[in-house]
């Protein structure tokens, strides 16, 4: 690995919804090019943490710092849920292109169109590009969300259970793609998942949220038993 440049620092971060503490005094430094998995049981606060990192939620205590500056960090986010109903009209191609806001003319430039096509190809969506995204399957939607996040070439990518509805082959294909960009372009990735074997295969570090507190470390210390302690006892 190359020398470590921090791009994101969480300092004493705490989040409490009215009458309901989610996490507390969370300290974490994420360096450029790292691939993290974020694990923990349902409702423990993974999505809340991601939304705090994105400044969509204001933390109750502590700070989220982007280094060297917020502007330099382009974030791609593939959220767990999205408001796309079955009558949503845009095609997958147009949906992916929405994220291109750099050039100011209403229509996309030739270069931008090429970027969209390349992204569609990399995510295996070329054949489906003209299908309205409202009519796409759950997995196809996830691919389109990923393509949209990647088309603007982010340097921080946040995936919130984006592979949960994918079949095993597609899952591997998409994570291979993310891994490839992670390695070649130094893309930093935060991958929220419940799939520990998958996390072990692709990521380098983990952050585990539990109702008692957080734990972080190298990925080879992460085991199913560790995360699903409660269940492991019953087995």
């Amino acid at each position, binding site marked *: 690995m190359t020398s470590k440049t921090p791009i994101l620092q969480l300092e004493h971060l705490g989040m409490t919804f009215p009458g309901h503490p989610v996490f507390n005094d969370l300290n974490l430094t994420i360096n450029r090019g790292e691939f993290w998995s974020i694990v923990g049981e349902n409702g423990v606060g993974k999505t809340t943490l991601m939304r705090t990192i*994105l*400044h*969509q939620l204001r933390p109750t205590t502590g700070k989220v710092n982007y280094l060297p500056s917020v502007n330099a960090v382009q*974030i*791609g*986010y593939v*959220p767990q849920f*999205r*408001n796309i109903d079955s*009558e949503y*009209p*845009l*095609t997958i191609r*147009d*949906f992916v292109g*929405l*994220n*291109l*806001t750099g*050039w*100011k003319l*209403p*229509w996309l430039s030739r270069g931008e169109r090429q970027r969209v096509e390349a992204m569609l190809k990399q995510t295996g969506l070329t054949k489906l590009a*003209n299908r*309205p995204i409202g009519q796409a399957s759950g997995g196809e939607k996830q691919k389109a969300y990923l393509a*949209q*996040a990647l088309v*603007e070439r982010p340097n921080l990518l946040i995936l919130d259970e984006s592979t949960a509805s994918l079949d095993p082959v597609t899952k591997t294909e998409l994570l291979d793609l993310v891994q490839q960009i992670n390695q070649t372009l130094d893309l930093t990735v935060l991958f929220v998942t419940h799939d520990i074997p998958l996390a072990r295969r692709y990521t380098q570090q983990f952050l585990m949220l539990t109702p008692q507190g957080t734990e972080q470390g190298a990925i080879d210390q992460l085991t199913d038993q560790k995360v699903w302690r409660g269940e492991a006892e019953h087995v």
Partner: protein
Amino acid sequence: MFSYEFMRNAFAAGTIIAVICGIMGVFVIARNMSFLTHTLSEIGFSGAAFGIFAGWTPLSGMLLFTVVSSVIVGQLSVRAERREAATSAISALFIGLGILFLSLANTNASYATNILFGSVIGISSSDVTQMLVLSILVLIVVLVIYRFLKFDSFDHTGALVKGLWTNTLSVTFLVLLALSVSVAAQIVGSLLIFILLTLPAATAKYFAHSVGRMMGLAILLALVGVWSGLALSYVTNYPVSFFIAAIEALFYFIALGWQHAQTAAKN
């Protein structure tokens, strides 16, 4: 029918309105703002009544009321569920005010029906110029913020992540909508403006799958409605809004039927 100046003016005005409504309508539908658009048109009615009462033109009163209220609604739009109820309350208040202003202004009933339901005969060439200027203003702003507005309207989640200034965009859009409502009210009347601002775009959504195509189709549908409405109204002497409403609603139901048949064929 084009030998009459008022008919030429009406067609020119109708064409401008159709173009503006087609473009703005696509965003109205994408942002789920049909209901708010309806309310803005009622506020427009109240503003027009106030304009008459204050001795201004109806258009000036309308512009004042819709623009101010759109900024207020924009600040108020914190929670979607609460917005519906708040919007209904505001709309009730403004209809009441509109009726009050009209009775205070002591104008006759036909003037009131003109504001509510529109009128073809009243349009002068200076009205057309005024509408053209306002419409061009709206179009320029839309053009400048187009990509941001498109992203925010069709994928609010994505736009938020991107850090787009979604609140500013939302207020800007509401002000543009207020301008469009005031422009369109000149011909279809304030109670029926929302037809042109919602139905053509809602119909287009079923047939076109890119923002550009949706706009093109919505403009076309609005143009067909307005032009044939004007012509039919000229021939029959029935109100133009009736024809426009009937034609646009017909298109919409055809689209729904088509969509239904498509889904049925798939299963």
